[in-house]
C-alpha cells in the first residue's frame, strides 16, 4: 500500500446555526496534499458556510479545524491567510476601481515604510502569472476585465499570499467553456506543485473531470463520499437530491403562433460607449422558445437589457404584442406582460436588504391583490410568498428573512419564482439556472417548457450550450453583436453551433425564416 499524502486540512464535527437554519451539522472533512476535493450539494446545503468557516469569515458554533495536524482557531481571514488558506468567493471580492496589482496587494502591501511600491508586486504577479499560466495585466482596472480574467486575479491574489490550500466556491458558474478548461489546467498545475484545492460546483461533468474525491452535503449534513471512478452524473445527482433526477428535458412539439417580441434592427451601446449590438432583428412567437447561444460578451447581455428597458436602444425598434416599447420605462415594459430573469441577480434581480416576501412582489406590489389604492396588503403578500416558496422549493427560514441571507442558488430561485409565476405573455430569461443545483434545474426547465406550452413566448439566453440545445425550439447564434444564424433546434448540432459561436459563416442560409423551428417530439440530453 502506498502511503497517502499528508492531511493538510481537517474539519471535525463542524456545526453552524443561523437564525432559523442549521447550515452545517456535524460536518467533517479532510483534505490531503495535492488533491482536489469536490464539494457537491443542493442550493443551501451549507457549502459556502463551511468554506467561510475554514476561511475565518464565520465562526463555527461547535467543532474544530486542524491545519497540518495542528488544531487552530481561525479568528478571521488574516489567520486563515497566515496559515496558507486562500479562497475565491462565489461572488468575487475585487474592488472594481482598483487595478489588478492594487487588488492583489491589498492587505499584504509591500513598500518602503508606509509607502506603496507596486513594482515589487508587479514583479511577483508576473512570476506567478508565468509559473501557473495565469495571464493578466497588473495595471488593468478590474472593472474592465471579463469575469474569467477577474477569476484569475482572485486566484493570483490567493497565491500571492502563498496559499497552498485553495478554496474555489463555484468558480465556473460564470465562466465560458474555454475559460473553464483554462481554469482546470491551472488547478492541475497547482496540485502538481503540491497545493490542495477544494472545488465547489453544480456542474456534475466538471466535478467528474477535475476531482480526486467528491463529498456530498445535503441540508447541512455530509451524506456521502465517492470518487469520480465510482460515480456517474446520475448517481451524483441522486446522492445530492436524495431522489432520482431526470437529467433530460421532456418537451412536446412547439405550436408557435403570432409573434410576441419583435426586434427590428436594434443597436445598443455598452457601458464604454462601444456598439455591441449591431442591428439585431428577430421574432419570438407565442408558444416557442428561442434560445440565444453565443460566447459571453457578444452583446447578449446588452441586448436583453435594451429589450427590458434597462439600457437605451440606440436605433431600431422593439415591439411587444405589436406595441412599440423602444426605450420605454422598465415598468411599462413589465406591464405589457414581459417577465425578466436578469443575468446579474445581485444587481438587477433583487433588493438584497428586503425580505424574501417583498422581493417576490418587486414588480407587482403596487397593484391588486398586493395593494389596495396606496395601502399594501401584507397578508396577500405573505400568502403569495408562502405559496411560491413551497412551489419553487426556496430554502429560507421564513418569508420574512432578508434575501441577503439566502444561499446563492436560493437567491436565484426567488427571482425565478417571481418571474415565472407572473404568467406573462413574454418571458426573457438570461442565465436562468446559473448557480442552481441539478434538482432545481430539472424543475426550472420544466417550468420554462410549461410557460411555452401555456402560450408564452420565451427568449432564453444562456452560456450553457447544453441548456440552449435542450430547451430551445429555435436557436439564434450571436456573434460580435449580430445574429450569425438562426437554426431549428432539432437539427442543430453542437459542432455546428460551436463553429458559429466562434465566428464561422453559416453553411447555408437555412433558418432565416422564423417559422421553421418546429421541433418534433424530442427528448434531449441535458448537460448538467
Amino acid at each position, binding site marked *: 500500500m502506498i502511503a497517502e499524502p499528508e492531511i493538510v486540512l481537517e474539519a471535525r464535527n463542524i456545526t453552524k446555526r443561523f437564525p432559523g437554519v442549521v447550515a452545517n451539522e456535524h460536518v467533517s472533512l479532510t483534505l490531503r496534499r495535492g488533491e482536489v476535493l469536490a464539494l457537491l450539494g443542493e442550493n443551501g446545503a451549507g457549502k459556502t458556510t463551511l468554506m467561510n468557516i475554514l476561511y475565518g*469569515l464565520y465562526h463555527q458554533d461547535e467543532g474544530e479545524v486542524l491545519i497540518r495536524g495542528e488544531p487552530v482557531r481561525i479568528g*478571521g481571514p488574516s489567520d486563515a491567510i497566515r496559515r496558507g488558506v486562500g479562497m475565491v468567493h462565489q461572488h468575487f471580492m475585487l474592488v472594481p476601481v482598483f487595478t489588478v496589482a492594487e487588488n492583489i496587494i491589498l492587505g499584504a502591501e509591500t513598500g518602503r515604510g508606509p*509607502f506603496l511600491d*507596486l*513594482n515589487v508586486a508587479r514583479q511577483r504577479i508576473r512570476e506567478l502569472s508565468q509559473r501557473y499560466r495565469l495571464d493578466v495585466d497588473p495595471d488593468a482596472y478590474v472593472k474592465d476585465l471579463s469575469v474569467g480574467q477577474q477569476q484569475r486575479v482572485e486566484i493570483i491574489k490567493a497565491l500571492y499570499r502563498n496559499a497552498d490550500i485553495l478554496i474555489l466556491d463555484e468558480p465556473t458558474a460564470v465562466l465560458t467553456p474555454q475559460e473553464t478548461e483554462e481554469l482546470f489546467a491551472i488547478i492541475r498545475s497547482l496540485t502538481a506543485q503540491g497545493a490542495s484545492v477544494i472545488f465547489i460546483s453544480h456542474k456534475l461533468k466538471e466535478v467528474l473531470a477535475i476531482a480526486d474525491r467528491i463529498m456530498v452535503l445535503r441540508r447541512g449534513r455530509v451524506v456521502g463520499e465517492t470518487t469520480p471512478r465510482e460515480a456517474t452524473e446520475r448517481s451524483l445527482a441522486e446522492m445530492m437530491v436524495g431522489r432520482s433526477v431526470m437529467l433530460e428535458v421532456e418537451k412536446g412539439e412547439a405550436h408557435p403562433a403570432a409573434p410576441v417580441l419583435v426586434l427590428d434592427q436594434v443597436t445598443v451601446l455598452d457601458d464604454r460607449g462601444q456598439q455591441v449590438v449591431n442591428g439585431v432583428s428577430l421574432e419570438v412567437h407565442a408558444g416557442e422558445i428561442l434560445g440565444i447561444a453565443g460566447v459571453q460578451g457578444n452583446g447578449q447581455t446588452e441586448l436583453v437589457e435594451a429589450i427590458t428597458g434597462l439600457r437605451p436602444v440606440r436605433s431600431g425598434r422593439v415591439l411587444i404584442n405589436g406595441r412599440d416599447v423602444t426605450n420605454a420605462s422598465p415598468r411599462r415594459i413589465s406591464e405589457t406582460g414581459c417577465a425578466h430573469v436578469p443575468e446579474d441577480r445581485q444587481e438587477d434581480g433583487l433588493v438584497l436588504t428586503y425580505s424574501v416576501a417583498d422581493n417576490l412582489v418587486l414588480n407587482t406590489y403596487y397593484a391588486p391583490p398586493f395593494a389596495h389604492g396606496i395601502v399594501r396588503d401584507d397578508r396577500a403578500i405573505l400568502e403569495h410568498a408562502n405559496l411560491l416558496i413551497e412551489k419553487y422549493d426556496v430554502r429560507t427560514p421564513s418569508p420574512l428573512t432578508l434575501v441577503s441571507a439566502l444561499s446563492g442558488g436560493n437567491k436565484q430561485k426567488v427571482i425565478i419564482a417571481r418571474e415565472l409565476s407572473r404568467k406573462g405573455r413574454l418571458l426573457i430569461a438570461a442565465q436562468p439556472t446559473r448557480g442552481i443545483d441539478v434538482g432545481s434545474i430539472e424543475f426550472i426547465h420544466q417550468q420554462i417548457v410549461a410557460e411555452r406550452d401555456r402560450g408564452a413566448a420565451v427568449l432564453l439566453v444562456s452560456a450553457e450550450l447544453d441548456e440552449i440545445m435542450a430547451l430551445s425550439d429555435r436557436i439564434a447564434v450571436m456573434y460580435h453583436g449580430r445574429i450569425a444564424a438562426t437554426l431549428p433546434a432539432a437539427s442543430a448540432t453542437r459542432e455546428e453551433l460551436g463553429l458559429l459561436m466562434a465566428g464561422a459563416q453559416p453553411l447555408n442560409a437555412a433558418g432565416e425564416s422564423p417559422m421553421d423551428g418546429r421541433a418534433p417530439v424530442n427528448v434531449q440530453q441535458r448537460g448538467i
Partner: protein
Amino acid sequence: MQITERMARPSAARIPWVTIGVWSGLAILVLVAYARAPLATTAVLTSTIRQSTPIILGALAGIMCERSGVINIGIEGMMLIAAFLGFLFNVWTGDLLLATLGALLVGAAVGAFHALMSITLKVDQIIAGTVINILAVGLTGYFYQQGLTTRGKWSSVSIPLLADIPVVGPVFFSNPPITFASLILIVVVHVLLFRTAWGLRTRAVGEHPAAADTVGIAVNRVRYINVIIGGMLAGLAGAFLTLESVGSFERNMTNGRGFVSLAVMIFGKWTPFGAWGGSLLFGFANALQSQIQFLKNQLPPWLAWIGDLPPQFIGMLPYVLTIAVLAGFVGRARPPAAIGKVYQKE
C-alpha cells in the same frame, strides 16, 4: 478640473488640457490685474488663500471620512464645537498652541462620536451628522458668554527670501500657521490616500468592504480611525476661525462653511487637489466680494453700478458662484461605492 487619482501609471497617457488651459488662463488674468492694480490684486489673492483655508480643511475632513465609506455631513458642527472650545482654551490658557491642540482633540472626540453613532450603533449616517450639527449650534449657543477676551490670535509668519517674491511671496509664503498647515495637509492627505498602504486600505473599505474583509482588513477599525482623523481636520478648521482669522467666537460663526466644504469635496471628486480647486474658487469669490464692498467708491465708472448693489446681494456672490460651478461644470461625480452603508458580515 481633471485630477487623476491613479497611482503608478504613466501620467503621460492623458494630458489634462482642460486643467492646463484653465490654470494658464487664470495666471494671465492675475498678471494683467497685477499690472493695473498691484495692491488690490495681491490683497485679493492673499485673502483668497485665507478664506479658502477652513473650506479646504473641512473638505479634507470629508474626504477622509467618505473615502472610508462614512458620510459626514456633521463637519459644520464639528468645526463649530472645535472653534468654540478652542476659543475657550485660549481664554483660559492664553496659549495659542495649546488652544489649537485642544481644538484638534475636540475635533477628534466629535469624530469619534460620529464613528460611534454611524459604525457601532449603526445610526443612519445622515442623521448622525445632523445630530452633531444641531448639538453644535445648541451647545455653543447655550454656553457662550459675551465679553470674553483673549490675548490674541495667530499672526502671519513670513518665510525668508520666498516671501519676497512678488505676488507669490505674500500669497503663499507669508501666512499664519494654520493656513500654512492647510496647504501642507493637502499634499499630506493626497499622499496618504494614494501612495500609502493605509490609503489603499481606506479606499478599499470605502469601495468594497467585504473585499477588504476577506483579505484580513479590519473594516470598522479602518473606518473609525479615518473618521477620527477627519474630525481632527474639521477641528483645525474650527481653530482657524477663532484662533487665526477672527480671534473671538460668535454664535454660529461657521456660517455654512462646513456645508460649502462638502460641496467642494464633491466638486473635487473626493480628491484633495480637486477640493482645493473648489475651495480657492469659493475663497476667491469671497475675497472679491469683500474687496468690492471695501473699494465701493473707487470703482472705475463702467463698474460703478456694482457699488450701488445692496451689500447682501454681493455677499451672496460666493455661494451663488459655488453652486453654479458645482451644478454646471462638474461632470458626474462618483462617490465611493459603499458610502453610507454599515458593514456587517454575518
